């Protein structure tokens, strides 16, 4: 039971990350390597710039009901600004260029954080009371994990609703599938892209909040591991399929926990290696991804 919750909670985190990456990839064919830095930025917006080991709260001082939207706004805002300043000019460029540019952006943001905050991880107390365990079906589960799962599911259903039942959502899906055709039908390209970036940024912020709460630490490299897994999940799930990325996120979370449990003690440190080998295996078996949309296979 404990493992199930672990898997779901980790999976939720990965799924949120995967969605953030997949959304932007869908509309612009851009792999946003800056995503991890945006997560880190959101974390650091909570504290005052300093080199101390003990963080002083900045935005972290705000009451919760203001804090959450504020951080979400930071994420969305930063993401939109990055689109405007960097990615808008690169829309016609080849994928390699866009990829490196996003890498460079992430690198730049990370080093700005480094300048302001130093590379020492800081301790940060955010909602640590959520770390308390709750007795559920015979297992002691940290309340935070339940929150993570809850947030994950809530976000996913909200986005799903947005995409399926609102005009904006349909336009986003259309733009993600065939950008030019959508434009020819009157869909405002810039608006859709900006909105996509904003949502992706907000997702990054959500991950940031959950991570900080979970680990109690603010470290400039915090977003990287999640971003990498999210990147992989997006591809495994099938490019062009948002549902696929989410599913793959959960799958990767489940497999990680499974490996942790199943592997003999000696091999545990190599857990990640097995995970990545598994990823390669999946890709070789189904290169287009697990849930690729039927339109991704191109006709000659």
């Amino acid at each position, binding site marked *: 039971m404990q493992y199930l919750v672990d898997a779901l909670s980790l999976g939720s985190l990965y799924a949120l990350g995967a969605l953030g990456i997949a959304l932007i990839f869908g509309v612009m064919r851009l792999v946003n390597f800056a995503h991890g830095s945006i997560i880190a930025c959101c974390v650091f917006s909570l504290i005052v710039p300093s080199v101390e080991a003990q963080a002083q709260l900045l935005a972290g001082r705000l009451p919760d009901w203001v804090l959450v939207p504020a951080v979400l706004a930071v994420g969305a805002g930063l993401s939109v600004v990055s689109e405007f300043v960097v990615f808008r000019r690169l829309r*016609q460029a080849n994928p390699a*260029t866009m*990829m490196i*540019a996003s890498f460079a952006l992430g*690198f730049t*943001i990370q*080093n700005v954080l*480094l300048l302001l905050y130093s590379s020492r991880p800081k301790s940060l107390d955010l909602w640590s009371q959520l770390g308390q365990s709750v007795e559920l079906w015979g297992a002691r589960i940290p309340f935070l994990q339940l929150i993570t799962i809850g947030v994950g599911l809530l976000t996913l259903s909200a986005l799903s609703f947005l995409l399926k039942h609102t005009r904006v959502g349909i336009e986003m899906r259309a733009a993600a599938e065939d950008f030019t055709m959508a434009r020819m039908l009157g869909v405002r390209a810039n608006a859709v892209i900006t909105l996509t970036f904003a949502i992706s940024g907000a997702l990054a912020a959500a991950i940031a909040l959950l991570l900080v709460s979970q680990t109690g630490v603010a470290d400039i490299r915090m977003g990287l591991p999640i971003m990498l897994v999210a990147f992989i999940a997006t591809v495994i799930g099938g490019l062009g399929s948002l549902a696929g990325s989410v599913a793959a996120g959960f799958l990767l979370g489940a497999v990680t926990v499974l490996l942790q449990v199943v592997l003999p003690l000696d091999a545990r440190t190599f857990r990640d290696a097995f995970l990545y080998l598994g*990823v390669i295996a999946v890709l*070789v078996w189904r290169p287009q991804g697990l849930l690729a949309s039927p339109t991704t296979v191109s006709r000659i």
Partner: protein
Amino acid sequence: MLLSLLLLAVAVAAALTGSEAVERTASEMFIRMVLVIGLYIFVGNSGVMSFGHVGFMCIGAYASAWQTLPVAMKQLVLPGLPQWLLDSSISPLPAAIFSALLVAVVALISGLVLMRLSGIAASIATFAFLAVVNVVYSNWDSVSAGTSSVVGIPVYANLWVTIAWAIVAIAIAFFYSVSRYGLALRAVREDPVAAQACGVWVYRERLVAYVLSAFVVGLAGVLYAHFLGVLNPDAFYLDNTFLALAMLVVGGVSSLSGAVVGVLSLSLLIELLVRMEDGVRFGETMLSLPGGAQEVLLGVAMILMLIFRPGGLMAGREIVWRKLF
């Protein structure tokens, strides 16, 4: 060929300054050049972005270390190595060749699997490969000393050694691109279906490029180990992957000159920024950047370079004698 002369000119200039620091920087640049040229052999010709090549560098570096470390040290620090390695220690050049060959073998095996993939799937798979290599080397303590460094590696990679290998790398890359293998692969890059219709076996061409590029990158790893004298798996992960790819893309991913120019320009830029951080004299005043600003400016510079020349500095063209006159 012109490129080699250009590099020689740089090397001579560096030697003339007489400053050891400059020579070291130039050596490091030449090592990076070998890496990026190796990367170009695969990425530039096939159009498939590979994140895993730095993993080959890691394998090559450690392999050379295993062969050349003094025996006593080996037995102390790396007890997990097979007996025949522990008992002997060979001279650098054969060690380098063997290491690169080992890397090529690993590339062959992994390539047999990975080259069946295309496009983004292949890129992710190469990234997974990098991650696997990193995890293995970071944790297999008895063989690689894990995250603590391996020290005491004989240092012989000075300016002239590195530039020699850089020229070798250029030669390999050049002869590959003009060979029918290179041509076939570039055809695949442009239009896989048409290429296949002309009888090109996509899988084989990619595999050839992959193994060859891994060989060169393995050499870069060897040089790196013998330059630094110290090895640590962290050096072979994201930061260097990003830097190598950036140098390639900024220079222009589809030409050899692009790879070289990319390394030159970014290395120069980094050097400049580091100097500026230390402080520059402008007559009476001393201008200096706050610590850490160097990386930020580097990132910004790269973004600007890409915005203004999205195809890279060389935009796919090569530096050729004819075009100069």
